[in-house]
């Protein structure tokens, strides 16, 4: 029964700062109900939240898929939006392209992607300028 898993899907809306963070709260609850250890939950929370807020702040919206296995969590975030021109630059701590509106709310510190990478064991990012960004995060346990 090694392929037992739970798949969760969330639609993330652009500019929805009010509900931003809801998806990561739901993922957290599911992880607790499945008996996943606290240290892992904490990393998943940070990764999910940052990925979610990235979509809220920068894109036209997207979809987050979370698959929870008995040895790892896989988070795949795909958005429609501007895409990232220079991924290496986007991965630099402190670099941000967040609009003023987001910065005024305390977001856009340029730590989103770096924090996601820090929280994950495997991190993949792929983007086509003007079309989409796809981020895949794996956290093992």
């Amino acid at each position, binding site marked *: 029964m090694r392929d037992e898993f739970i798949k969760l899907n969330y639609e993330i809306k652009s500019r929805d700062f009010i509900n931003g*963070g809801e998806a990561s709260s739901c993922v957290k609850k599911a992880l*607790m109900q499945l008996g996943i250890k606290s240290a892992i939950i904490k990393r998943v929370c940070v990764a999910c939240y940052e990925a979610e807020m990235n979509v809220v702040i920068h894109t036209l919206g997207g979809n987050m898929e979370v698959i929870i296995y008995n040895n790892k969590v896989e988070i795949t975030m795909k958005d429609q939006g501007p895409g990232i021109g220079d991924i290496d630059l986007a991965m630099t701590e402190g670099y941000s392209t967040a609009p003023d509106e987001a910065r005024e709310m305390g977001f856009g510190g340029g730590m989103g992607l770096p924090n996601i990478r820090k929280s994950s064991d495997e991190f993949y990012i792929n983007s086509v300028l003007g079309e989409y960004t796809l981020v895949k995060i794996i956290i093992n346990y």
Partner: protein
Amino acid sequence: MKEIYHSVKLVEENCIGCSRCMTKCPMEAIRLKNSKAVIYEEKCIDCGECIKVCQHNAHKADLDDIEAIKDFKVKVVIPSVTIYTQFGSYINPSLINEAVKSLGFDEVYDITYACDIVSEIIKKEIENTPKPVIGSFCPAVVRLIEVNYPTLIEHVIKVLTPIEVAASLIREKYAKLNYKPEDVGIFYITPCVSWITKVKNTALNRKSQINGAIPMSDIYPSLLKYVNKNKSSYTEKSTNMSYTGVLWAVSGGQCRSMEMDEFISVDGTKNVIKVLNDIENGKFSDVKYVEPYACDGGCVGGVLLVENPYNAKRIALNLNEHINFEYRFGGLSDGLKNKFTVENNINKNYDIKLADDFESAVKKMKYMNNIINSLPGNDCGQCGSPSCRAFAEDVVKGLSSLNECKFIR
């Protein structure tokens, strides 16, 4: 799993099954079964919200009677700092202490001194704790963290509460005077129900043992009578309480007493939940200290208090004009710090997992998600659960049956 005592109880004969408490409970810990409220104890944090919202006195706190003090040779009382805010406007704290003593106590212990000790310990201990550090002085919030935020346990400051510190100092003092521990009865006058739970659950710790929690509302009429009778003839004695200690009664007071700069003080369980969610998501790492209270306004919002919490706050803040304020706690010795620092004051006896092993939990979660998809999602509450999601979880746990939902597709 160890059973945990809860102080909030249902008085079944008073319950009319109105569902008000079920919908207001911030923990979704209440259900309606056969038109009566039922508290699911593993989810309850004893915040007292159900007591506040029930109009039929169907939720009550399991309280100690003042008669209980008669069992002890020496009777010491620790009044909550909120007591000095409960008489409409300024009343000399010494007079209030006299009024408390007149109820039959031998000593009224000044808890503000213990608050100052704890402030000093926090200032040091904060360096050894991941940021933001979370204050541990509201037992309902500590329980909330135990139940729903196990990832944040390491952020909780590892220090005893002022009440425990006070009890411990009292026990030491009377031990030196050759009293046996069982001769000394220590009682806390509590503004809220979560403290009753805390006192009862730590009853076995002899060093800081508190023998009972007496609700402020029960003794209030006697205190008021004493205060009114004596206030005109009362000659102002200087009060040597600590003003910084008094501030612990109101939200933000702990941080002010510690002259903390980057802090968040948050009150009301739902607001505390918002802050804890954000901390869990990795926010606020630039915040030094979070001071959380389950009750609105801080401890002055306690369900067992009488005065309007916002007037109580005014009185607390104005007390510095009257108190002969002296910060009596200069240096903090390592010995004292170590004595009141605790390895872990968190109870890990909670578990919200659906099953012990991963495979069974996955099966149950799939079943639960299927149920959620067939429910209307309007959280009407007619099934007796506070939300459709809570109902699905109840069904999976065997606590409700599917046919209790009349709208299932």
